[in-house]
């Protein structure tokens, strides 16, 4: 990496920590530190909500998906706008009027202490680990692509984030999120501009998109109904709806964002900002990946973007076979380039018959290239014993570091750092809040001063920061990173959603019913996940929520434990 790029990355890190540290206004009291005294405007909270969701895994993994699989992934977000409307009508006013610090605190107001304790422990276990994965994901990729030391990369991402979150609290998290979101979006537009200007002379953007479209990369909608495929319209609208309801309604890392808003209406506005912007933003990320695919149609492309095992593959016992695969890939890529150029010429000439023929040949050549890449990934997994070897997440960082001009490389690395740090900061903040409010203040030391809880909150943030860094160093061998993080959550997300449905939507549900329902819901998700692994994880949330509501209501209506509570209006 050029020294100018290094300077940009270091300047970004210094700027973001400095900016976070000076955002301490009002953080000398617990409510200021954890909830910014409920004073933030909707647009800042809305950007923070989006920055928290857009982790480096999403940025890097989704561009890779655009390159290899196309725009289908976008359907995953189709349930989000509907979820935001439902949450704006139900959860936002409930949490706001209950004056809670955490979503789980509300469960004790409505049910009992044991339901709150179980929910908060599940959150801490799941989010604590996933926070480590969120630190690990970009660290592993950057360490391989740029040859950096993994532990140092983990610390470069995790420690500055922990420091400004620890000192500045939620104010620092929110206002740095706003700036980090700007860096990410600017970086994406810069990448798109570079990709557009890198097309060979005579190839327009429209012609490039026609090539991507004929290779299936622009197929966005798939209306087939199958429980096995994650990226279909119905999985996105129904399964995605339940996932987004769970994530934005029951996960403290998101709930805490909109609890900092000035009022119920500002909280609603922050969620609806995502409802309007999230799908177009995700389309921008995916189209960046699609344009990387178009770029490599005309430029020399590596067979595999993840060079973690390069030395072993080129000098080990499988070296001859690997070299043969590379030769096969080179031939297939050359043929694909020839047919791509002919398809462009045919389209320019407006020759309908030639367009049809060259497009068919190009499509076949692209499938041949994809076939060699698939075999190469399988070969690497078998030869090296690295069953989790993944190539998709390395496409975009490789493009950035090898093809982008000096200066923009530093900007894009800073954008990847920004995506990681914005998510990590929100998670550390919410983990500390749940630790202090739901465990420490509730069960360990109920009577203490505000400044004592504030001090414990700062230490809890630091503890979770170190914990995340430690997990990140050991989680470095995790495979498809997007799914790993989603799977962490999906085991209890849907079940937790079921508990909140019982709490908010029903009058008759009791604490015992909710508690047993939560356990039954998680057992049902586990049995589906392990018994029917072919069913997409998106449907786990639906299963969890439905089982919790069914079991919870049955026990509440026929059991004798607990008391029913009135629904707030």
């Amino acid at each position, binding site marked *: 990496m050029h020294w100018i790029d290094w300077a940009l990355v270091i300047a970004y890190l210094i700027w973001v920590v400095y900016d976070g540290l000076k955002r301490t206004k009002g953080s000398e009291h617990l409510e200021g530190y954890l909830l910014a005294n409920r004073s933030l405007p909707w647009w800042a909270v809305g950007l923070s909500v989006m920055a928290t969701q857009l982790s480096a895994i999403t940025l890097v993994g989704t561009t890779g998906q655009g390159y290899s699989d196309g725009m289908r992934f976008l359907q995953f977000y189709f349930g989000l706008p509907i979820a935001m409307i439902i949450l704006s009508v139900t959860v936002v006013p409930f949490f706001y009027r209950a004056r809670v610090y955490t979503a789980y605190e509300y469960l004790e107001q409505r049910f009992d202490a044991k339901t709150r304790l179980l929910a908060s422990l599940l959150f801490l276990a799941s989010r604590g680990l996933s926070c480590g994965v969120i630190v690990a994901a970009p660290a592993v990729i950057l360490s391989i692509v740029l040859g950096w030391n993994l532990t140092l990369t983990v610390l470069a991402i995790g420690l500055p984030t922990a420091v400004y979150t620890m000192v500045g609290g939620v104010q620092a998290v929110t206002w740095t999120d706003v700036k980090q979101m700007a860096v990410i979006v600017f970086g994406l537009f810069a990448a798109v501009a570079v990709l557009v200007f890198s097309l060979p002379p005579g190839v327009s953007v429209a012609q490039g998109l026609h090539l991507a479209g004929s290779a299936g990369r622009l197929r*966005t909608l798939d209306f087939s109904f199958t429980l096995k495929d994650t990226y279909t319209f119905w999985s996105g609208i129904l399964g995605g709806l339940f996932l987004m309801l769970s994530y934005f309604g029951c996960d403290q890392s998101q709930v805490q964002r909109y609890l900092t808003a000035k009022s119920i209406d500002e909280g609603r506005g922050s969620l609806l900002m995502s*409802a309007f912007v999230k799908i177009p933003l995700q389309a921008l990320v995916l189209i960046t990946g699609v344009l990387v695919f178009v770029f490599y149609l005309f430029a020399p492309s590596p067979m595999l973007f993840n060079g973690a095992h390069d030395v072993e593959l080129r000098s080990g016992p499988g070296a001859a076979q690997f070299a043969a695969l590379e030769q096969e890939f080179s031939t297939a890529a050359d043929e694909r380039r020839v047919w791509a150029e002919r398809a462009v010429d045919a389209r320019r000439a407006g020759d309908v018959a030639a367009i049809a023929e060259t497009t068919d040949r190009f499509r076949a050549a692209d499938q041949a290239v994809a076939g060699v890449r698939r075999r190469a990934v399988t070969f690497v997994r078998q030869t090296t014993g690295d069953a989790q070897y993944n190539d998709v997440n390395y496409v975009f960082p490789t493009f950035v570091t090898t093809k982008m001009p000096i200066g923009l490389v530093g900007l894009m690395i800073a954008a990847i750092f920004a995506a990681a740090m914005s998510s990590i900061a929100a998670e550390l903040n919410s983990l500390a809040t749940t630790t202090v409010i739901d465990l420490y203040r509730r069960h360990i030391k109920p009577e203490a001063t505000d400044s004592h809880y504030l001090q414990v909150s700062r230490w809890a943030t630091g503890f979770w920061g170190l914990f995340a860094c430690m997990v990140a160093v050991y989680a470095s061998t995790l495979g498809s990173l997007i799914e790993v993080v989603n799977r962490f959550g999906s085991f209890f997300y849907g079940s937790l959603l079921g508990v909140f449905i019982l709490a908010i939507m029903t009058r008759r549900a009791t604490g015992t019913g909710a508690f047993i329902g939560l356990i039954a819901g998680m057992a049902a998700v586990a049995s589906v996940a392990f018994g029917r692994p072919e069913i997409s994880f998106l449907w786990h949330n639906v299963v969890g929520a439905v089982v919790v509501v069914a079991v919870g209501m049955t026990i509440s209506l026929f059991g004798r434990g607990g008391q029913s509570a009135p629904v707030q209006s």
Partner: protein
Amino acid sequence: MNTDRTRHWKLTYIGVLVNEAFVILCLWLFSRHFSY
């Protein structure tokens, strides 16, 4: 006052749904145009 607020939010929610339908329609047209 309260009626105005309710009406404002109802219209906003309808706007979110219309926006989503419009975005999906645009994606479909975009995909269809460049896939042939």
